[in-house]
């Protein structure tokens, strides 16, 4: 059953070498700071299906051993400087992907099958750099070549959401890829803005937007836990802060200065 723990306890339970799945909406920047504080290292990051400042911070902090992603970008603020530098330096294992392939790999894990077929992709050089992807003749149904990708089973899925209830049910709204991460992962850790007393599963309408506690191992409260990224229905992104990061992180020293400020800022909130 779901445990309600402190942010520190949540972060401390991710071991070096483990794979960590993170989303693009509902990013737990609070847990990211806590992971860095806890000295996370050699993590295998799985971006579902892309990432931005969260991945760049973890990379810059030296926490990443391998990364699987369809893209790392700061959006309006431009390229991800620590990612780009680390790629040029060959600082970690790089598994370039394409969005639906990451989602298909997670679905294979959700379904308990070793692989998942996926439309498109043929002709892409991704097939050259991903020898774990294969092109096969469809064994049944309409004949034709189909790409298949292996299951992705993250050790831990980690995200941030507006609310949990006391039982550990999480309100995710339409962001069903958050549920997909949890179904596929061995364990799921969630940070939330707040814990509510009502049962989120109570009505058909509210239950429709809920990840059941069955899939949730740990919950920690982290107010403004996505900052400076946005959280739906709660707060917009702090674009100026992301731009400030983009500018400072261009150099290693600038990144260090930003990171130290970011960690103490997050400590103040917590």
């Amino acid at each position: 059953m779901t445990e309600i723990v402190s942010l520190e306890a949540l972060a401390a339970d991710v071991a070096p070498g483990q794979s960590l799945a993170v989303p693009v909406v509902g990013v737990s920047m609070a847990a990211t700071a806590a992971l860095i504080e806890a000295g996370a290292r050699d993590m295998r990051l799985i971006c579902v299906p892309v990432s931005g400042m969260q991945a760049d911070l973890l990379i810059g902090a030296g926490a990443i051993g391998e990364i699987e992603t369809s893209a790392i970008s700061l959006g309006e603020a431009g390229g991800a400087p620590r990612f780009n530098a680390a790629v040029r330096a060959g600082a970690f294992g790089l598994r370039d992907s394409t969005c639906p392939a990451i989602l298909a790999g997670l679905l294979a894990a959700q379904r308990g099958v070793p692989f998942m077929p996926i439309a498109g992709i043929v002709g892409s050089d991704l097939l050259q750099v991903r020898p774990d992807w294969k092109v096969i003749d469809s064994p049944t149904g309409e004949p034709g070549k189909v790409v298949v990708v292996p299951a992705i089973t993250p050790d831990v899925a980690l995200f941030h959401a507006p609310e949990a209830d006391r039982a550990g049910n999480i309100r995710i709204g339409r962001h069903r890829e958050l549920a997909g991460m949890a179904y596929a992962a061995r364990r799921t850790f969630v940070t939330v803005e707040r814990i509510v007393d009502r049962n989120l599963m109570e009505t058909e309408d509210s239950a429709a937007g809920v990840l059941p506690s069955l899939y949730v191992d740990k919950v920690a409260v982290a107010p403004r836990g996505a900052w400076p990224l946005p959280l739906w229905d709660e707060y917009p992104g702090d674009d100026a802060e992301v731009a400030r990061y983009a500018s400072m992180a261009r150099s290693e020293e600038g990144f260090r200065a930003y990171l130290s400020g970011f960690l103490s800022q997050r400590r103040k909130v917590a």
Partner: protein
Amino acid sequence: MAAERERRELLINVVAGLLDGIRHVAVGASSPIPAAGAMLLRARSELEGKPPVRISILGSQEHNFFTNGAIELFDCAAQGRVDAFFLGGGQIDGAGNINLVGTGAYPKSDVRWPGSFGSAYLYHLVPRVILFREEHSPRVFVPKVDFVSAAATTPEVKRRGGPYALLTNMALFDFDRSRGGFALRSVHPGYSSSDVRSQTGFDYVEPPVVPATPLPDAQTLELLRGRVMRELAETYPAFARTMLQAA
């Protein structure tokens, strides 16, 4: 400022023309010009009593018809329910292949870009993919991309999707899928076809006389500066503000 506004209005008008006849167009995040083109088409179709146009803007709350998470755009495209989409590229080559990964040898790219996103998939599945890249230079339009994020043509598999046109700051090209290459359709006012030739690193077909890309007419400008900018402001407030301030 006024020149910049005119440049954008021309592009928006071309985009609306390229989308003519579609029912559902999806637009990536941070793509104000494609989004404005789609909104212009929607407004026009409504005025002319044509079938309604649906616009999905990724990451937008207002223009979000999806309720099944990140996979739904991709599923929707696979089901044939997305008629048009926009892709860019750090490099685009004469065969229509695009590179969103980086230059030089993989994986330690000389210049690294964000990554392939959903391009490898959507290029196969969306009938009308419009390549939109404002910078028109030989470093973008190369003979052969260093990394194929998404391939334009793949005779070895059945596909409904692929490139339809390429729109830049200088010109508009059509893509011929049987031949697997571009043909210059028109050059934007202020540029010549030899400007285009000199700034394009790949070969393409060119008609004996190259027309100028038409400017938006008065009725279009009225729609664009009024209703379309108001609608755009919900999703792209900064862009819409610049456009209105330039007026």
